[in-house]
């Protein structure tokens, strides 16, 4: 575990990977099992409210984990809100065009994934702050475009009504969110356990070296963007279907880029368990604070991000003492 370096030299990084064992997957499975059991707990009179918090915790998990998948390829993006929003708006507009929801959902995800290829192609050669600034600007512009489309198309600044997902049945909605988180976890594990892991990690840790070793950065960077953004769009679909009403300001809010980034760093970058765990902790903290103050509850994310950078560069995953545990999943 890395203590804080006075010089601040401890990079945000993962430990060198060891061979993987099945044991590493156990906490992940336990977390998913607990999440699956949640609606069956005796939740009492506040069941509906608690279920809603749990629903958005799952959405936060999808966002954080999908953000992490992109970060693994060295692309620290501030555009996740854009793809979340494109998913939400794409879904709403596809429903308006008459598509059934079960079709609108994957199509919206694929469309957002396609849009991410445009951003990815433009930012291909950018790194560090240039990349961050470009992605931040991209989000603002997608929002501006949606907001300035004729109101008859996308509702303008006011927003759009979205039919409730699954007829508004909150247990069914929860089950769907759980399924999509489980799917995201599977995708993340697939990325971790296949050649994609080596490609992403090599690009992140030394782009030029990776190219010299034959890693096609164009292909893998775009692939990372596509996977990550499609999953973020699925989270956006869940959001749109749960809140019935979407507007540009909230849907494309910077908060939707900040939260996944912070959650992933807090939980443990470049892992599967970390972002999911981080979402569990941070989303609940956010809700508790939201209960007592009306505005500014996102302060949690600012604070946690700063503290993580200064004192906890490996996030929660770095706290585990058991190093024999095998590679972080």
């Amino acid at each position, binding site marked *: 575990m890395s203590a804080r370096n006075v010089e601040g030299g401890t990079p945000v*990084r*993962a*430990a*060198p*990977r*060891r*061979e993987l064992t099945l044991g590493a997957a156990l906490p992940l499975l336990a977390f998913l099992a607990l999440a699956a059991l949640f609606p069956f707990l005796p939740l009492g009179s506040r069941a509906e409210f608690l279920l809603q918090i749990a629903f958005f915790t799952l959405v936060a998990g999808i966002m954080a984990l999908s953000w992490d998948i992109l970060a693994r390829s060295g692309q620290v993006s501030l555009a996740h809100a854009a793809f979340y929003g494109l998913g939400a708006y794409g879904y709403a507009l596809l429903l308006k065009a008459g598509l059934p929801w079960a079709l609108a959902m994957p199509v919206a995800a694929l469309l957002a994934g396609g849009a991410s290829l445009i951003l990815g192609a433009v930012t291909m050669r950018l790194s560090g702050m240039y990349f961050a600034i470009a992605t931040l600007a991209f989000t603002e512009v997608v929002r501006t475009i949606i907001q300035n489309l004729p109101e008859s198309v996308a509702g303008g600044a006011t927003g759009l009504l979205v039919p409730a997902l699954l007829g508004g049945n909150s247990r069914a909605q929860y089950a769907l969110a759980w399924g999509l988180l489980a799917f995201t976890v599977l995708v993340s594990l697939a990325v971790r356990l*296949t*050649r994609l892991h*080596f*490609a992403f*990690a*090599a690009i992140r*840790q*030394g782009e*030029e*070296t*990776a*190219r*010299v*070793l*034959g*890693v*096609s*950065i164009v292909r893998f960077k775009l692939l990372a963007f596509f996977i990550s953004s499609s999953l973020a769009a699925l989270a956006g679909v869940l959001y749109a279907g749960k809140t019935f009403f979407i507007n540009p300001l909230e849907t494309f809010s910077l908060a939707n880029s900040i939260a996944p980034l912070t959650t992933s760093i807090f939980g443990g970058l470049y892992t599967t368990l970390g972002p999911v765990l981080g979402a569990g902790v941070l989303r609940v903290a956010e809700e508790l604070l939201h209960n007592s103050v009306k505005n500014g509850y996102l302060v949690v994310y600012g604070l946690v991000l700063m503290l993580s950078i200064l004192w906890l560069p490996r996030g929660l995953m770095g706290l585990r003492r058991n190093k024999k545990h095998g590679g972080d999943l």
Partner: protein
Amino acid sequence: MTAATTTGGALSPTPQGVEVLRAEGLSKRFGGLKAVQDVSFTHHQGEILAVIGPNGAGKTTLLNLLSGVYRPSAGRLHLGGRDVTDLPMEARCHAGLGRAFQIVRPFPEMTVHENVTVGALFGKPGQRLPKARERAWALLERTGLAAHADKAAHELTLLQDKRLEVARAVATQPSVLLLDEVMAGLRPGEAQEAVALVRGVRDSGVSVLFIEHIMPVVRDLADRVVVMDQGQVLAQGTYREVTADPRVVSAYLGTEEGLHA
């Protein structure tokens, strides 16, 4: 990127052997500075070719032109009869150019084995992960790094880092391996081990082109030497031939290093 074109299909054996790499009039300008000018040479199969020259002679720029870090301002580069001048770095790797850097650049968050696996996995298209892992293992054993396979790269000594750098480049299955001053920073005893390592690479069927400052290493290792000065090729030939060439001697005497430094 445009696909590489084959040039007449001619891979004719010359008196020295079969050509693997041929530079034709390679030049690179940076603004007004002519870093490399009209450099031509032929590298033969199984040959260890050294590129030497005083500091600032353009050796590293030449290596960057060969590996694709820079695009040449003029000239062509052929690899195994294929024109690879317009290929980007990753495609040159696929075409058979491997490169090890002077300053070792291991992937810091990977183990030694994973580092080599990257080369084995992406060096040629269509490799499968399990197979690549196995080949990486085999290479670690050959380069004497097997005992350190699970260490992080920063836990290695400099010599081990250099071995890793070479192992990773060899893992890409190159036909030509470019080495940028791999001996730099090594103690004499270590340098001897590195020389043996490079010979081993050649004996496994890879042609080696290396840049080197340390003349005894060039003498021991190189089959042929290309001498560069001020961006141009000054002389080519065996070590004996070029060191006997008065132009080479004067180019070196003009610098502080001296030929036999």
